């Protein structure tokens, strides 16, 4: 909006100059030039106003996410309403819907694995509350003056209970558990607004400041750090600012290979739309189906293929943020600058405490010509980690390389769909025989690395050979494309599986860290042992599942991702038990040289360790930025600090 205003005034100024023109030749030329410029501007202005009109009307919303998210997504679980795991009447697991490769398939080994791993039974159900009890939702306490002013802007909003509850949580275990149990939320947003563009956000933030309203930006809602939880002590009206309708690619610049995108777009839409033009971002966090560009920026997200494309901080060229003090942006799109500390780094990871990210210019790449999955089996986790370390050392990591431990390997196997052809079964059996009997791998020790190569065909094949050669020196055996691909499918369905677990008294969660190479093994072992021990001490009656994988490699270390689940039958307060165990696990991570988070962020869940992590001086630096940018704590989600 600022730009269009200044255009207008320049235009006026230009035409008034043109009216008193009659002196020298040079003046004439100058006037001519001005006329031309004015003409351009005039035209530009018209164009501009046209764009703005479309910008904010958003009549043709192409995005996947409707304003009423609950129409297509679960209100008390992960993902789409039509997609879920269940045990059918025969006791066999199947995945409903049509959206995924696994959809509609029967998974014959899942039940055995599930019952044996957790000591659970398909006969012991712990069903969720079927529907939201709207009367259990705290009534909206609205700031009437704010609502009046907001109405005048025409920006859509709602204070219906379903909309508010949907935005009162992310996907932490305790949040989903509370929804399933029909527990009352202490504090939920009082209303939800759906800005359609940057200027809408500017208006909303101005009004929020004017009326002292608390704003909580909401993107994809996939947070697992309690970042979306409303602070119970917040007495002002809380407005959830849902960015989902700001979901367009505004332009693509093929010369510089960048795209300018509204920050509310979710990962799958961004990829799909860019693909239509032959491009991709290559940024694929596990949550990309639902998480948003703005959310990635706000949490310092990391994508599975970062080895080729980089993490979010490597991908962004320019960020536009609306804060209570105004809009932060840079003056140019230079690929690197030495202009003091990079202000983008105040925004990246700010977790919605400073403002709303509205538009981002980010790198794009042509869609790779060729993609190939792969997998390598190692005799044990130690060998696998040593191999990944060597791959990182030689800087030849494929787009993605992940090492799953034995527990996850077995889990992956339990998700094998029913095989139709006898022949495939036979080949699988043969492979298993070769690895365990002939090569002497212990099936309870062996681990698998999954690989994804990208690029032009020849290079991919060359690259593949290089990686397999390295793997061979660590005793790794190539184990086929299917196993690799299955590993990545697991990534997208695992969140759905948690809902299945919760139907049968099993709670589960994941957490992550980053750690120097030499401490990876020690950290994994100690954290698993700590979890097992804490569970025992806290009265968990069944052996928990603790599993980890190395999901990212860097020059100096790796990202490690843990899964942790247990059967909670017999526990009075499973969520509390779970939280204490996770707390202990995090302490163990920190004591073993791991970071507080690699990409999930801090939110409110891990705030207590911030001082320890970045020093109290560091916290002070961040605090002073917050105090300057948002002195009245309009962005009052109280994350991070």
């Amino acid at each position: 909006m600022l730009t269009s205003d200044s255009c207008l005034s320049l235009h006026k100024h230009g035409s008034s100059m043109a009216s008193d023109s009659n002196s020298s030749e040079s003046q004439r030329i100058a006037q001519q030039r001005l006329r031309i410029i004015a003409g351009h501007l005039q035209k530009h202005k018209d164009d501009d106003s046209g764009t703005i009109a479309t910008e904010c009307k958003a009549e043709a919303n192409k995005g996947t996410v409707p304003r009423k998210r609950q129409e297509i997504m679960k209100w008390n679980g992960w993902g789409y309403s039509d997609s879920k795991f269940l045990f059918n009447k025969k006791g066999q697991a199947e995945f409903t819907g049509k959206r995924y490769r696994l959809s509609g398939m029967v998974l014959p080994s899942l039940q055995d694995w599930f019952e044996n791993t957790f000591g659970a039974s398909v006969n012991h159900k712990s069903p969720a509350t079927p529907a939201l009890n709207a009367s259990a939702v705290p009534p909206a306490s609205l700031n009437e003056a704010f609502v009046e002013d907001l109405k005048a802007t025409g920006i859509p909003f709602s204070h219906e209970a379903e909309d508010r509850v949907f935005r009162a949580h992310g996907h932490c275990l305790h949040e989903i558990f509370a929804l399933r149990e029909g527990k009352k939320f202490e504090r939920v947003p009082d209303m939800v607004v759906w800005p359609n563009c940057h200027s809408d956000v500017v208006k909303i933030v101005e009004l929020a400041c004017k009326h002292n309203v608390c704003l909580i930006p909401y993107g994809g809602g996939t947070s697992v750090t309690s970042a979306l939880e409303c602070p119970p002590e917040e007495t002002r009206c809380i407005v959830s600012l849902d960015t989902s309708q700001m979901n367009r690619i505004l332009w693509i610049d093929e010369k510089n290979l960048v795209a300018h995108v509204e920050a509310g777009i979710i990962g799958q839409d961004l990829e799909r739309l860019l693909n239509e033009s032959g491009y991709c971002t290559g940024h694929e966090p596990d949550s990309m189906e639902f998480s948003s560009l703005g959310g990635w920026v706000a949490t310092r997200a990391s994508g599975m293929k970062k080895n080729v494309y980089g993490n979010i901080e490597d991908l962004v060229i320019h960020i536009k943020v609306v804060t209570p003090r105004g809009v932060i942006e840079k003056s140019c799109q230079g690929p690197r600058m030495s202009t003091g500390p990079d202000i983008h780094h105040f925004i990246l990871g700010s977790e919605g405490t400073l403002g709303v990210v509205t538009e981002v210019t980010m790198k794009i790449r042509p869609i790779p010509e060729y993609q190939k999955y792969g997998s390598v089996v190692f005799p044990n986790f130690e060998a696998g980690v040593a191999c990944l370390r060597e791959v990182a050392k030689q800087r030849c990591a494929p787009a993605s390389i992940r090492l799953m431990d034995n527990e996850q390997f077995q889990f992956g196997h339990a998700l094998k769909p029913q095989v139709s052809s006898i022949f495939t079964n036979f080949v699988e059996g043969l492979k298993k025989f070769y690895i365990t009997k002939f090569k002497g791998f212990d099936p309870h020790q062996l681990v698998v690395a999954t690989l994804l190569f990208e690029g032009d065909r020849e290079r991919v094949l060359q690259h593949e050979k290089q990686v397999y050669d390295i793997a061979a020196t660590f005793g790794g055996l190539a184990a086929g494309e299917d196993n690799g691909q299955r590993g990545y499918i697991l990534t997208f369905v695992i969140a759905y599986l948690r809902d299945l677990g919760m139907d049968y008294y099993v709670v589960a969660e994941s957490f992550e860290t980053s750690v120097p190479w030499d401490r990876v093994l020690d950290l994994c072992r100690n954290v698993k042992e700590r979890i097992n021990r804490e569970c025992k001490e806290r009265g968990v009656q069944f052996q928990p599942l603790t599993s980890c994988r190395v999901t990212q490699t860097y020059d100096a270390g790796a990202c490690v991702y843990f899964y942790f689940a247990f059967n909670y039958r017999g526990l009075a307060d499973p969520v509390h038990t779970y939280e204490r165990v996770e707390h202990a696990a995090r302490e163990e991570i920190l004591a073993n040289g791991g970071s507080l988070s690699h990409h999930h962020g801090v939110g409110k869940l891990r705030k207590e360790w911030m001082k320890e992590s970045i020093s109290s001086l560091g916290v002070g630096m961040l605090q002073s930025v917050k105090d300057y940018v948002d002195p009245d704590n309009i962005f009052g989600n109280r994350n991070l600090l």
Partner: protein
Amino acid sequence: KACTPNYSPGRGWPTSQTQDGFEDILEERRNSSDLKYALRCYAPVLYKGVTPCKANMLKNIVLQSDQLRYVINQVSQESGEAPDIIQEEASVILEEMAHRLQISTVRFFAFALSKAFKTLFQHVCVNEEGIQRLQQAIQEHPVVLLPSHRSYMDFLLMSYILYTYDLALPVIAAGMDFMGMKFVGEMLRMSGAFFIRRSFGGDKLYWAVFSEYVKTMLRNGFAPIEFFLEGTRSRTCKSLTPKLGLLNIVIEPFFKGEVFDVNLVPISISYERILEESLYARELLGVPKPKESTSGLLKARRILSEDYGSIHVYFGQPVSVRSLAQGKVNRSTYNLFPRHIPRKPMEETQSFVNDTAYRIVRLQEDNMVLKPWVLMASLLLQNLEGMELSVLTEQTVWLRGLALSYAAFLDWPDHAPTAKVVSSSLALHRGLACVSGGRVSLVVGEPLGPVTPEEALFNRAVSVLSCASYRNQVLHVFLRPAMLAVAMHTAASSKKNEVYNCFSFLWDMFSNDFILCPGDTVQDFEEACYLLVKTGAVQMPQQDIVMTDIGQPTLSFFNGLLEPFLQGYQVVCRYLCEEASEGLTEKQYIPAVRSFAHSVLCVFTGNLRCYEVLSSDMQKNALAALLRGKLPTQKALLARL
């Protein structure tokens, strides 16, 4: 058993001692074939089922470790020698150090020791619950065995017991002096001993090889590691203040996250009669310790003809370093340094290790099994002129009651009349005390022919010091109340704070002679008050501490108990005040103070009967107390004493 409410050593420590019953392992040996026993199937369970590591492989792991390689390069740079040469040096050190545990040698010892034990001892008793706890611990975590050290027998005995119970055989840190005995040294090496030089102060390479050797065994859980916290055999049968070097080494892998936990197992080995009894007394009096030699050992066969009563070995509760360190040491301080670079432990860690060491030694003390004779010895030493047998019997019964109410671990024969207990104790220790004409007195060795006053004094001192080594075994039970008794006696008034000041003065002064955990002054004082009040010797109206009507015998016994120490320290002070010249070196100190003490003892034959001041142990401790500088000047000290 009494429990002391105010005395709790803190989180992670076993709270109230519950002492288990004992089983005599010789009983079976007397009833079945020793040969069969030595050749039976030996298949111990190991830490997490690791396969045992061949001695040679172990050496290679150590020589190739990052830790050692780093130090080799460092030493090479400092000395200008090529790394190969230093590496070779390291290899030689390792060769000299390393154990070569062989089951055949262990079997040989199993056979030979069975024979020897059966002739020497009536019983070798082991607490079976302790063995079960140990077996559990060995499977879960690396285990460090920490036995008390009173005799050369200790470590053979330990291995013998572990073999008997089919537990993993330990590797044992032994002093290099054993290496002098060529054949025996090698035999010990093959039964699991590894040898370390007594002093290697600044030798970086030696330290690196040594610590890496120990850590490698610990990290991999190849075998339990055994060493003596006290560093050397205690010649006085008082526990020695712990040495921290090895304890630091075995704890560090936990702080660095290389192992999940380390279990420390305090083990108390109590001998009814110590093989080295009179040898120790002579050594303390300045007769040089016989050098360890094979021929010396053969001469010691004479020993085989005597009865040494029974041995009790108590395996204490395994102590988890992880639980101990919680909240005391922040492990993340190890995050910012490469773990293979040797670093001096931080202050926090040092004081943790120091505190742990003291508490382990106290646990050793607590679980020492006391025989009636130690009570009798305590009484006899307060009546050097001899006692009526009936009085001795009567007082022993009284003292037994006192000891039991102070939670002493007393092995008093069931259902035996007291007179019988006393007489059989006297019979076993007939070398130390004799009964003639109904009077019991110490036996003074009487050489044939005329005796000089010096010789007479020496012989007298030998018998007093030998007897004192039994009294010393019970000191830890009475120490705190005894110091309180002395403090009440010396304090100017009965005001609690004045008594406390005196107590605290004694506490500081005696902290080399007794095991007093650093920083526990107040706790010890309260414990002492509690115990004296509990047994009715003292009452504490308001801010006073006063003796009760019935308190006299207890308090005067306690005063008498510590009198030799007080007098000894007094003599040392007098020497330093009156005789010592300016340039006195530590080397000259012992002979000089000894001859001063001689002259004092020859002149004063009346009240001053502090033969114990002739003990080099006491002389060293007194000097150390003075050198610590915490105490007032010597004159002031003398005045206070």
